[in-house]
C-alpha cells in the first residue's frame, strides 16, 4: 500500500496522463538536497489547474531559485480519488511523486469559492491536519490568489496567507523559512517573522468578536508582529518582474492549451460589480518591447500553436494596435494563432479585426453586462447600445455571423425593464444583421445571450448589497425567456443555486470554517462541477451548524457594519467604495481613471501608471 500502488491505480482509471508529470519543460529537482520545497496545489482537476497563469509564473520562478523547488499538485478526479483511498496512496506531487506532507510549504491558490471543499479534501488525502492549530511539524499551509482578500471562511485551515502578487513575497518567505528551519525555532516564531513582511496575513494573529446579531463587532490584532491592516503586495515594475520563458506542456488536453501572454495587471474602468477591477489596481503595463521578447521566447520554447493576450481588458492596453501589429509580425510566419480575448465594444478596431481574421475567424464575444443604459450607468459599465451595434455591424460586414453576449441578472437596483432590455438589445443585433449589406452569404446569424447570476463581492462598491433570492432570479430568467422571440437568438442561463453558495463564501466570515469542515465530511467536493454539486447537502450542513446562509448572501448591509474583511488593505479606501455605491444609486458614472485620477486610494501602493 502507498505510492508504490500508483501503477496499479493508473491502470484502472480514466485519463491517467493527468497524474504522471514528466511533461515537456517540467522540472524535477533533487528533493532531499533542496532546502525549501514548495508544493503548489491547485484545488481543481489538472485540466483546469494547468490553464492557470499564476501557477505557471510561480512554478518556474521558484524553480529558478537555487535553494528552492516547486512541484505541482492537483485535485484527483473522483475515479482517481477512489483508487487513492482504496490503495492508501497519499496525495503526491507530479514531479518527484513525493507525498505532499513531506513538503515545507503547501500553497493553495484560491481562484473561486466553489473550490474550497477541494482544499480540505486534498489536505485530507495528503494526511495533513486540516486545522492550522493541529499542525506541529515544519510544514506550513498557505493560501494566495484573488479569493484570499477575504479568505475568512478558510481562516482556521491557513497558517498564513499571501495577499496580492506573489513574485516578490514568495521569495522572501522562502528565505525566511530556510533561515528558520536551520535555526530550529517554533512554528509561532516563523509566523511572527513572516507576519512582518508586507503582503503576509496570519489569520490566527487576529481575533474576531461578533455581535449578538452575528455581525462582526471587532477584529482585534493579538500579536504585535502582525500589521494592524495587512496590505496586499503589488509588483511595481512589470518589465523587470520575473516571467517564465517556457511553460510546462501538458500531454493531455487542458482547457486553455496555449501561451498566455500577460500584457498588464489592473484595470482602469471601474465597473462597480467587478472585484478584479478593484483588487488588482493600479494598472501596470508591460512594454511592447518586453512583450515581443517574451512572445518570441515562449513560442520557441513551447511549440504552442496559439498565443493569447491576457489581462482584464486587452484592448485598453495603451499601445494596443501597435502591440497587435508587431505580435502578428512574429506569429503569422510561424503559423501561430493570436487570440485576443477580453475585447471591449467601445474601442474595437476594424483593421485589427481584419488582421486576426487572416489567421482564424472565431465567434465574437461581448459583455454589455446589463440590458439598459440606466443599469449600465448604475454598474458603471460605460458601453452604449450604439457602440455595440456599430461594432457588430462592422463584424457582420467582415463576415462574422456568430455573436455571444454576456449579461448579469440580479444586479443592484435592477428592474424587470432592465431584464427585458437584454432581449431588446439582442433583437437589435439581429436587425443590424438583417440590414447589413456586405454580410457573409453562407451562414445564418447566431446570437447567443448568456446570463449569470450576480454575486456581490468584497472590495467592490456592491459589497454591502443583497444578492437576489433564487425565486427572483428564476422569475427574471423566465421573463427573459419569454421576451426573447427571435429564432436567431439562443438563451443560456446559469443555475443560481451555485451562485448563492458562491455569494455566501465570497462575503463569509470565520464561522463558515465549520460549515466547510462539515460539508467536507459529508463528501462535498468539486462543487463548481454540475455532476458533483449537491445543494441539498449544503443546506443540511448549514442547518446542522445553525448558520443561515441568507445572512451572508441575501442580506443588505449598512455602510457602518464591520465587514469580515475590513482588516485587509487592498489599497482601495472604504470611503471611495461608499462614494461609488452612492453614485450608483443616483445613476452617475465614474470616468475611466486613465482620463484622470478618481481617487480610489490605490496610489498608497506606490506603483503603477497612476502615480
Amino acid at each position, binding site marked *: 500500500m502507498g505510492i508504490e500502488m500508483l501503477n496499479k491505480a*493508473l*491502470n484502472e482509471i480514466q485519463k*491517467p496522463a493527468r497524474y*504522471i508529470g*514528466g511533461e*515537456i519543460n517540467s522540472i524535477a529537482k533533487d528533493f532531499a538536497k533542496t532546502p525549501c520545497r514548495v508544493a503548489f496545489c491547485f484545488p481543481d482537476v489538472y485540466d483546469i489547474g494547468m490553464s492557470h497563469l499564476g501557477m505557471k509564473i510561480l512554478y518556474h520562478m521558484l524553480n529558478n531559485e537555487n535553494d528552492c523547488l516547486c512541484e505541482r499538485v492537483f485535485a484527483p478526479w473522483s475515479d482517481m480519488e477512489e483508487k487513492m483511498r482504496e490503495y492508501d496512496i497519499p496525495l503526491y506531487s507530479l514531479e518527484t511523486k513525493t507525498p505532499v506532507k513531506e513538503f515545507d510549504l503547501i500553497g493553495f491558490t484560491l481562484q473561486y469559492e466553489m473550490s474550497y471543499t477541494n482544499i480540505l479534501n486534498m489536505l485530507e488525502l495528503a494526511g495533513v491536519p486540516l486545522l492550522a492549530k493541529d499542525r506541529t511539524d515544519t510544514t506550513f499551509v498557505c493560501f494566495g490568489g484573488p479569493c484570499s482578500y477575504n479568505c475568512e471562511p478558510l481562516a482556521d485551515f491557513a497558517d498564513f496567507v499571501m495577499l496580492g502578487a506573489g513574485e516578490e513575497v514568495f521569495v522572501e518567505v522562502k528565505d525566511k523559512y530556510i533561515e528558520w528551519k536551520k535555526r530550529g525555532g517554533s512554528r509561532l516564531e516563523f509566523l511572527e517573522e513572516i507576519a512582518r513582511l508586507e503582503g503576509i496575513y496570519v489569520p490566527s494573529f487576529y481575533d474576531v468578536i461578533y455581535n449578538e446579531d452575528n455581525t462582526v463587532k471587532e477584529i482585534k490584532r493579538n500579536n504585535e508582529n502582525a500589521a494592524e491592516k495587512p496590505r496586499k503586495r503589488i509588483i511595481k515594475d512589470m518589465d523587470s518582474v520575473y516571467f517564465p520563458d517556457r511553460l510546462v506542456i501538458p*500531454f*493531455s488536453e487542458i482547457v486553455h492549451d496555449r501561451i498566455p501572454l500577460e500584457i498588464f495587471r489592473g484595470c482602469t474602468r471601474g465597473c462597480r460589480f467587478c472585484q478584479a477591477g478593484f483588487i488588482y489596481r493600479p494598472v501596470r503595463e508591460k512594454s511592447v518591447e518586453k512583450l515581443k521578447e517574451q512572445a518570441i521566447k515562449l513560442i520557441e*520554447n513551447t*511549440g504552442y500553436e496559439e498565443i493569447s493576450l491576457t489581462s482584464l481588458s486587452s484592448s485598453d492596453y495603451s499601445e494596443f494596435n501597435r502591440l497587435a501589429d508587431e505580435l502578428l509580425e512574429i506569429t503569422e510566419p510561424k503559423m501561430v494563432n493570436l487570440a485576443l480575448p477580453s475585447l471591449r465594444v467601445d474601442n474595437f478596431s476594424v483593421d485589427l479585426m481584419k488582421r486576426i481574421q487572416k489567421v482564424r475567424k472565431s465567434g465574437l464575444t461581448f459583455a454589455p453586462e446589463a440590458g439598459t443604459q440606466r443599469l449600465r450607468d448604475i454598474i458603471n459599465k460605460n458601453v452604449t447600445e450604439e457602440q455595440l451595434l456599430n461594432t457588430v455591424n462592422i463584424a457582420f460586414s467582415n463576415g462574422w455571423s456568430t455573436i455571444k453576449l454576456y449579461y448579469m441578472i440580479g444586479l443592484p437596483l435592477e428592474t424587470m425593464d432592465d431584464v427585458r432590455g437584454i432581449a431588446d438589445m439582442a433583437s437589435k443585433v439581429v436587425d443590424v444583421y438583417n440590414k447589413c449589406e456586405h454580410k457573409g452569404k453562407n451562414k445564418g446569424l447566431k446570437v447567443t445571450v448568456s446570463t449569470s447570476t450576480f454575486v456581490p463581492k468584497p472590495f467592490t462598491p456592491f459589497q454591502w448589497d443583497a444578492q437576489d433570492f433564487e425565486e427572483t432570479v428564476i422569475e427574471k430568467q423566465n421573463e427573459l425567456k419569454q421576451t426573447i422571440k427571435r429564432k436567431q437568438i439562443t438563451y443560456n442561463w446559469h443555475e443560481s443555486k451555485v451562485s448563492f453558495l458562491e455569494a455566501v463564501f465570497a462575503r463569509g466570515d470565520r464561522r463558515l470554517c465549520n460549515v466547510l469542515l462539515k460539508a467536507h465530511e459529508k463528501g462535498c467536493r468539486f462543487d463548481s462541477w454540475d455532476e458533483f454539486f449537491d445543494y441539498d447537502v449544503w443546506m443540511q450542513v448549514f442547518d446542522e451548524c445553525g448558520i443561515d446562509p441568507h445572512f451572508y448572501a441575501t442580506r443588505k448591509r449598512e455602510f457602518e457594519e464591520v465587514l469580515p474583511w475590513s482588516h485587509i488593505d487592498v489599497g482601495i479606501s472604504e470611503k471611495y467604495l461608499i462614494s461609488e455605491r452612492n453614485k450608483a444609486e443616483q445613476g452617475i458614472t465614474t470616468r475611466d481613471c486613465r482620463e484622470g485620477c478618481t481617487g480610489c486610494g490605490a496610489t498608497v501602493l506606490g506603483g503603477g501608471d497612476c502615480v
Partner: protein
Amino acid sequence: MYKLRLSFSKTGYAKFVSHLDLMRMFQRVFRIAGIEMAFSQGFNPHPIMSIGNPVPTGVVGMEEYMDFSLKDENMSVTEIKDRLNAVLPVDFKILNVWEPVESMNLINKAHYKVTIKVKKELPNLGEYIQALKVKDDIVVAKKTKRSISNVDIKPWIYKLDLTDADGYNFEFDMVLSVGGNFNLKVNSVFDAFVKYVPDFDLEEYTITRLGLFKDNMTKIDS
C-alpha cells in the same frame, strides 16, 4: 518533402500517455527543436506524421516507429535525432532516425514481456498455460463499439511462454498479432486466463512491448 522514419522508446510513467496525446507532443517537440515538418494540403493542414501500430495506453514501448515528413532535406538524421532528444521529456527517447525502405504495413507481430501478480496463489499456472497452447481454440469475448462477439484468439498467439513464476508473481514472453490482420491485446490474453484458469484473479500487471516485427520476426528496414 523529406520522408523519414524514427524509432523511439516510451518508458516509466510516460506509458500512460495516450496515442493522440503522444502525436500532439511530437508536433510540439518538432517545433521546439526547430525542425520544420511538412504539412498536408487542403482546408485544414496538419503536419504529416503517422504511427502505424500505436502502443496502447499503459504499455511501455521499447522500440516504436513513427513516419514523418520534413519540409526540406537540410538536416542530417543524426542532427534530427539529437535535436529531438534534447527536447523530449525524460521518459521518451529517439533511438534512431532513417530514410524508410519498407512499408510499415509489413509489421504484424509484437513481442511483449508481461509481468503479473495474482490475488490467489496459483501453483499450477504453468500447466494451465501448456493446456491452453494445445487447445484447438481460445475463445474470448471481444468488445467493439456496438456489440460483444466471441473471437478465437488462438491463431493470433505466436508465442506464450511462462518464463518466471513464484505462485503469485509470473513473467511471460509473448508474441502476438498486431496490425491489419488482427490486433490482439495482452488484455485479451488475460481474459483467456480468467476464462480457462480456475481461480485466476489478477491483482496487478505491467506490460512492456519489446519490439515490432515482420512475419519472419525480423525488424522493418533491416
